[in-house]
């Protein structure tokens, strides 16, 4: 296990460390002022020094992200099940889901903020709009890509639509759903951050995007980078967690989760 695992961790780690060292060296040797490009050491120091402001902001952004992701799973999953029940439903409604997906969230976020009249709710709606489509489209694909011989078998044994859904279509679509979920996890975070940027609100509870804006106005560039580093780290953690969840659920049977002996 460790022999397989080690290169996957060590190789990107080495690249990361080398890049950081080069970055730090370039900043120091080039005499770059910190308000244009701070070095990684200064960013780390700022992160530690401003932890008491950044940590609560991280929690705010994270809670919007997770709520949006949960809503995306529920609405995306249920819509997918609904859409595959009838070709007519899918033909009628899928175009609107696509329109929602391709409309730039930056363009409609101000409207949503005005309509929702509640900052938290509008952030949630924006992040959800960005996050739900991958789950919807990949779950639809999963629900409709079931082996037709298995469908015949279920028909032969008199399983109705409901039992076929529960015992065949849903488990068969799990790998597709999980792959959509991994994409949506990152998108929910992006959606939350973008919505915060557009909302640009102050107030007691402000997310990381607001900290970036605020630091930009005050020319506290190292803090901008510290907040940015936190957002990236959050995205990476979400991706790793969802990948582990996917592996855990599929490791017994799905090709994608099998380790092949050589």
């Amino acid at each position, binding site marked *: 296990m460790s022999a397989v695992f080690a290169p996957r961790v060590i190789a990107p780690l080495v690249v990361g460390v080398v890049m950081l060292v080069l970055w730090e060296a370039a900043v120091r040797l080039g005499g770059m002022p910190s308000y244009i490009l701070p070095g990684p050491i200064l960013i780390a120091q700022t992160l530690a020094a401003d932890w008491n402001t950044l940590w609560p902001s991280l929690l705010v952004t994270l809670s919007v992200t997770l709520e949006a992701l949960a809503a995306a799973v529920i609405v995306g999953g249920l819509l997918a099940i609904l859409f595959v029940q009838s070709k007519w439903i899918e033909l009628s409604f899928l175009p609107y889901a696509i329109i929602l997906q391709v409309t730039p969230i930056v363009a409609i976020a101000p409207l949503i903020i005005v309509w929702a009249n509640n900052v938290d709710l509008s952030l949630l709606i924006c992040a959800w709009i960005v996050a739900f489509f991958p789950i919807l489209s990949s779950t639809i694909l999963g629900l409709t890509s079931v*082996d037709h*011989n*298995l469908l*015949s*078998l*279920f*028909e*032969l*044994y*008199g*399983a109705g639509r409901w*039992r076929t859904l529960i*015992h*065949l279509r849903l*488990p068969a679509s*799990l790998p597709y759903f999980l792959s959509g979920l991994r994409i949506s996890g990152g998108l929910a975070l992006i959606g939350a951050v973008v919505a915060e940027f557009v909302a640009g609100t102050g107030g007691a509870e402000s997310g990381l995007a607001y900290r970036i804006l605020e630091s930009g106005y005050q020319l506290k560039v190292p803090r901008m980078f510290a907040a940015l580093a936190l957002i990236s780290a959050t995205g990476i953690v979400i991706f790793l967690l969802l990948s582990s969840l996917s592996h855990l659920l599929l490791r*017994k*049977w*799905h*090709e994608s989760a*099998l380790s092949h002996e050589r």
Partner: protein
Amino acid sequence: MPDLVRLRGVSKVFANGVRALADVSLELRTAEFLSVLGPSGCGKSTLLRLISGLATPSGGTIGWPGAGRTARDHELGFVFQEPTLLPWATALANVMLPLKLHGMAKSESEGRAVEALRQVGLGGFEQAYPRELSGGMKMRVSIARALVTAPRLLLMDEPFAALDEITRHRLNADLLALWERQRFTVVFVTHSVFESVFLSQRIAVMAARPGRVLSELVIDAAYPRADSFRTSAEYAGYCRLASAQLGEAMAA
């Protein structure tokens, strides 16, 4: 033996206009082993789907002279060319599936599934997932699943075509042993002359475009048929006959 199923002038035209079957008349006798032999594209699979009730004929009738008038009223087993197992379920859960869909309690269905797996030579593999099994073993699970409901009719659609020859011979022998013990009716679709002669009591030879039954051949050789049957003069003679009929069917 009385007829289990009677096909009278059955035809099937698909929505795209393709005539898959034309005027097929055929009896399936109770407890008989019937092979349907024909070139690919001759409508063999369509024939099985019609008998099973998964598809409806465009013309003609499919009758069940005994009790129950349609395929739906009977226990059927269906074995596809691929093992067609649920990849997320163990061998045991796969075999239990038909019983579960019939609403049988787990306590009862589990025992029957364990027994069905044992009969196909997979005792001890209950907890294995399909990916852990070889192609031949997966096909055995598929046969166990088809037989777990104790069907009167077993429909098999080129089940061993994708297997290597050694595995195919062993599965042929094991299938015959199961059939001799349980005496369900088998319709075995194949494009192999040798397989059809080795297994069956009767062969229906089909021609393509449109699919139709051109001739029937009775294989009057005693069971149990051991591996030595494959090298007998009797077997060679029947293979020659079946090949000749298949040749005519392909020229027709």
